[in-house]
Structure formats: C-alpha cells, structure tokens
C-alpha cells in the first residue's frame, strides 16, 4: 500500500456554472459546497430521503435566510428537480450577489409600502 501522507491534500472542484476551480475547504477551514464567485452549487445530496442523490443538477442560489445567531444561510434550488438546500455562507463568498439577493424582494414589493406607514 503506497504511503499517501505526502500527496497533495487540497481538494478542488469545478463550478458547474462559471467553471471556476475552487478549493473544497475555505481559508478558515470550513467545508465549502458552492462556488465563491457565482455561488452556484451541485445537487449531490438527497435531503428528502437522505444519502447521495443521482440528480447531479446545478443548484442556483435563490434566497438568504438568517439563523437565530445572526449568521446568514444561503438557500439553493436545484434547477433540474427543484429541491431546496441551505448552507452557511463562507467568508470569501461574492458579497455583491449576497447583497443583491438580500435586497431583491424589497425592490419588487407585492403590496404598496406606504400602507405600512399607517400601522
């Protein structure tokens, strides 16, 4: 059995959307599952049944959820089978896309915001 202690241990993956090669682990050691540039992910885990998924579709970021601790979570949706997942935001994620997703609903409110002033 070959000694593997000397081999390269930096795992990388290629983004399914923009083709960027990203490292599997962020600088602070956190596991990364989405591209830091375009925030796209890949559908590899089946969250309804558990275990690996055979979909392998691209997952696009759709929303930002906030935990009780104040941390941001990124919600992805698979473009093939519409499944939803949530993942913690990494420190080096693209802040422009994060902020755009956070304020996107406020740009298109479904009701007139003036009505909230009279409450």
């Amino acid at each position: 059995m070959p000694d593997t202690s000397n081999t390269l241990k930096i795992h990388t993956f290629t983004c399914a959307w923009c083709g960027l090669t990203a490292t599997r682990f962020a600088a602070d050691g956190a596991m990364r599952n989405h591209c830091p540039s375009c925030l796209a992910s890949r559908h590899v885990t089946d969250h309804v049944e558990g275990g690996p998924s055979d979909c392998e579709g691209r997952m696009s970021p759709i929303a930002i959820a906030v935990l009780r601790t104040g941390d941001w979570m990124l919600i992805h949706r698979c473009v093939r089978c519409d499944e939803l997942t949530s993942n913690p935001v990494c420190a080096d994620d693209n802040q422009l896309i994060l902020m755009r997703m956070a304020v996107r609903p406020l740009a298109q409110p479904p009701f007139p915001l003036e009505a909230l002033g009279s409450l």
Partner: protein
Amino acid sequence: MPRRTRRHEHRGQRRKDVLHERDGHRANDFRCVGCRLDVSVHAPGTAHRNHCPQCLASLHVDRRLPGDRASPCRGRMEALAVFTRPDGEWMIVHQCLSCGELSSNRIAGDDNALALMRLALRPLQDTGRASRTMINL
C-alpha cells in the same frame, strides 16, 4: 336520586353525518398550528395555499410533490426566508422544525404584510453584518 332500574337496553349512538370527515364542508380547510386561526384554502391570488395568512406557519405534510400528503413527519414549518421569482412574485421558504426539510410556496393576497416585511428585512436587521458586506463590495 339516581334511577336504579334500567328501562331499556343500552342503545348505540345514533349515526351522524360527520361533515368534516371526508369531502365534507371543510375537507381542505385547516387550522393553523401556530396561532389556531381557522384558514380556508380559498385564497385570493393563489390556488395552493399551504400556510396561515396571519403567522405564515405551515405543516409538513407533503414529501416531494406539492399536495401528495405523503410525509410522515407532520412537523410544524416556520417561515425562514423570502425570495423573488424572475417574474417578481414573492415566495416564502418554509423549514420544518422537526426534520429540517425546506419547501417553498407563493404568497397569497391576504398574507400578513407586516409579517412578510419582517421576513424580507431579516438579512438587513443585523446592521454590522450588512454594513460589512457593503464595505467589502
């Protein structure tokens, strides 16, 4: 004084028409698990209401497809986030409190505007986080 002698044999209960049993007058109406509000499924603006218009809570009954009622979980689902579809419709993301499953649903016309607005503003609530993001841009 209680009667000791029994005049008649014990008679079974009279059969009643239970209206809410199957396809009755409120087969699809539901009562909210969060605020106990009686909610009709007939909502303005949507044909698939699954959450309470007052507190936006839902129940984990569907497994993969909307309306399949195949999930054994039956946990309470809280509104987690709001996002916008490309056509500008707001959608609510629910998360099951007992198993962590996520699902999304369109908002209805009579959903509580204040609750929706609080949900949409939640990422910007923590001003430290938001301003750090803006500075990093």
